[in-house]
């Protein structure tokens, strides 16, 4: 259910826009989300391959293997989604016009911020894979909850002030907070796993 909390922001923010600036603005924001959503399809597909790899790496090579696998996953997402984010920064407004015939002030910036959010989400996904490998997926709920609280909390101020740029910025803020929380949580889980394995070795005498 943790992912439901995360998607709550994506569900509610277009409605906030609709209430404050009307349904046409919500539609414009929706098309930006849909354009960036294409990248999300790629991220989901790649993660269907990466998550089992992380789980297997932990089972075969322990924590060292898991850390290596998570590092590789991070590199895969940064090298694939990073250039897409830059591409959308440069061509976002033109792509919106070509594909949807949608044009509004600062459209490119909104698309860029949403793709930046997706890049941040991909980092939380990597941390989530680590937690899944450690069989501690419940830790992910803290990341999702803080993502939701930070984005919806900042939405109250930012959307009325900067309209759609503010709306996209709220998701970036949520993304930054989410990444920090899941990374710290995973770090703690990894440290506990090291501690537990050291204890187990001491009990069996192998650590001596």
């Amino acid at each position: 259910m943790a992912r439901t909390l995360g998607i709550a922001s994506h569900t509610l923010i277009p409605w906030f826009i609709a209430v404050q600036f009307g349904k046409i603005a919500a539609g414009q924001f929706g098309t930006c989300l849909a354009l960036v959503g294409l990248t999300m399809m790629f991220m989901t597909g790649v993660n269907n391959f990466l998550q089992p790899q992380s789980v297997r790496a932990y089972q075969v090579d322990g924590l060292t293997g898991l850390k290596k696998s998570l590092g590789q996953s991070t590199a895969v997402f940064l090298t694939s989604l990073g250039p897409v984010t830059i591409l959308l920064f440069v061509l976002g407004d033109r792509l919106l016009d070509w594909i949807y015939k949608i044009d509004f002030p600062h459209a490119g910036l909104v698309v860029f911020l949403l793709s930046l959010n997706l890049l941040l989400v991909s980092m939380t996904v990597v941390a989530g894979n680590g937690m899944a490998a450690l069989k501690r997926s419940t830790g992910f709920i803290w990341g999702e909850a803080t993502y939701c609280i930070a984005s919806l909390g900042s939405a109250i101020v930012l959307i009325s002030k900067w309209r759609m740029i503010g709306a996209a910025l709220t998701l970036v803020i949520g993304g930054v907070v989410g990444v920090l929380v899941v990374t710290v949580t995973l770090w703690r889980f990894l440290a506990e796993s090291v501690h537990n394995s050291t204890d187990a070795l001491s009990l069996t005498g192998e650590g001596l």
Partner: protein
Amino acid sequence: MSFTNFITMVLVAHWCTPLELGIYALAWTVVGFLRTAQERTLAAPYMVLAHRRREKGDSLLGSSLVHQALFAVAAGLGLLLLAVSVFAWNPIWDVSAMPTSILALAFAVPMMLLRDHLRAVSCTHFRYHIALVMNTLVGIIQLGGLLFAAAAGWLSIPLLYVWIGVAHLLPCAIWILLRPQPFRVIPSELGTDWRESGLIHVGW
């Protein structure tokens, strides 16, 4: 499947008014939320339990389908209530108005959720070709109907959502008739299987 939805939104942006696009996008956020909620609540635990509890056989799928039906009905009723609430906010009863679109969504969403679940079930049992056939059928019917409605000048967001529901209904009906994955509903198991699915969420 996401490709069909992407193309649908592109066509809506080209052929409908900006206001209709806004209504479509807003309604779609609700669809996205409900699909994710169902995927996490029902499909993901089924994916784990189907392999972990092989001895339960067909009854686990029977229970999962009953749980899904209850979820879909609750989602449909929730949307019906939302349509009534939004009617108070936007009291214009015409085909481009928000309440009519959400009302149409209340019809379509249970079908979309059922198709999603049947696809997840097919993938769980490594029957990807069934998921692919279902996706293709939905795509052809959905986009074909959309093109026809646009050509005939009938295209509106409520009609589009009703049509999306119909496009999802047909492959689901075929799946239920052919039963490519056998299932059996055992009423006494429904509660036990629900609790066991819940335990998956807490990392059991």
